């Protein structure tokens, strides 16, 4: 689904990532870990085409990122749900409308999908907050709303960047639980997190592979986790 082949990325100066190769198989569950500033977010951006590798080749759904037009990338994002660390919303429309935004921009009939939307919101525990504006939501509610928005189009891949960064332990457990359930439905999931405790706890519920970025390389972490 997403393939990186000897990919390197540098922001102008020295390389942040080099020789990164990875093949995300359908239905797999990956954690991505590493110290702050190691390039976890950059790596995820390479995976959803927000950045073009400075060397090597990145392929999203069998398309070379360099050859994708802006519209190709927009369409690929309808198959890749992204949850950012600092989830951003349209602050002037309600949370429910924000969650439905991918449907709207894809030209789907939002009214026809109302039942799905309601189900999704209740599954994320957000039903009572549907009409709240995003700035009125708590950190955990924002994270869950971002997750709901990422999965409303039933994407093949979900990339989450520190989805539990701003929430307490209990809430982070709930969020991970949601992602594990999505994985059980066959979605490919990749979560960037520096919280090793969370990763350990999650590995008890799901067959997860842990990738670590260190010294600009991507490595498969051993059994110590």
């Amino acid at each position, binding site marked *: 689904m997403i393939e990186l082949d000897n990919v390197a990325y540098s922001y102008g100066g020295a390389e942040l990532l080099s020789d990164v190769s990875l093949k995300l198989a359908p239905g797999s569950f990956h954690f991505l870990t590493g110290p702050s500033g190691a390039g976890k977010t950059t790596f995820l951006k390479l995976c959803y085409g927000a950045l073009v590798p400075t060397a090597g080749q990145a392929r999203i759904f069998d398309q070379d990122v360099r050859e994708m037009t802006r519209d190709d990338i927009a369409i690929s994002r309808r198959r890749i749900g992204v949850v950012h660390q600092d989830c951003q919303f349209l*602050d002037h429309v309600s949370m429910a409308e924000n969650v439905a935004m991918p449907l709207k921009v894809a030209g789907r009939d939002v009214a026809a999908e109302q039942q799905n939307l309601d189900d999704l919101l209740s599954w994320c525990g957000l039903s009572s907050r549907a009409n709240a504006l995003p700035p009125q939501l708590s950190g955990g509610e924002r994270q869950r709303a971002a997750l709901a928005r990422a999965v409303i189009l039933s994407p093949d891949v979900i990339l989450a960047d520190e989805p539990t960064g701003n929430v307490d332990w209990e809430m982070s457990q709930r969020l991970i639980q949601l992602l594990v359930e999505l994985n059980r439905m066959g979605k490919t999931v990749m979560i960037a997190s520096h919280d090793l405790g969370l990763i350990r706890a999650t590995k008890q519920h799901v067959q997860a592979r842990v990738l670590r970025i260190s010294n600009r390389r991507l490595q498969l972490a051993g059994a110590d986790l």
Partner: protein
Amino acid sequence: MPAALTAWLTGDASADRVVPPSGFTAQLTLFAAGVMTFLTVFALALSLATGRLAERWGDDLARASTVRISAPADQMRTQTAAALRVLETTEGVESAQALSAEDQQALLAPWFGPDVPVDALPVPQLIEVTESDGGFDAAGLRLRLSAEAPGAVLDDHTRWRRPLVAAASRLRTLGLLSILLIGGAMAAMITLAANAALAANSQVIGVLRLVGAKDRYIARAFVRRFTLRALIGSVVGMICGAIAILFLPDQGEVGLLTGLGFRGIEWLWLPLLPLAAAAVAYGATRRAASRVLAALR
């Protein structure tokens, strides 16, 4: 109106909602479009009026000249006859006719009043000359007249006609240039306003891009908004301009400013102005949006 345009104008209201409402800049865009159209109405009126003037002067005056004969009373008749002979044999003169004493008196009546005995005054004899389409060689004619009838003076009107016609045509050109400049200035203002709106909504654009919106979808919300604002502002400006032109004080039939305004079918230019303003806004916002979006991946 094509169905696609109607659909675009009435629009998908929900798509518009993705861009937050902006009170103040919206009013500035409306205001700018209104003022610009108001000015354009006058520039257009000026162009049309001077165009008419240049055409009329060119037509009327180019075809008529006068020969004036000032001579002692006893030579008047012979010089007039000599001048008429010269004129009749001049190429480019269609007809030449000496004015009768009654005609001359009628011409002078507005200045002297009807009761002054014009016959008793040494009034010069006038000969009305009508040119053919090709016109005549004024310098050559003057030479021949001075040889045959020393008291004859050719007044071919060109001396004062040419600069006036040139000025009128130049005014028309300036008017048209002003319209272009006003259009350009409006495009610049709307580009600035659109850039400001796009910059202020960079988070909105980023979010839309993240959830899979194509450029066209993102740009449309902005483009539609600015186009409609320019259209509405421009309609108001056009109406104000039209009212101002309608209520210009009537200057009667004489004077350079006569006819500053629209005649008959010329009024149909006015409804085109808001459409042009909307087209300018559409183009300016589209360019601004595609430039901003291209910088984002």
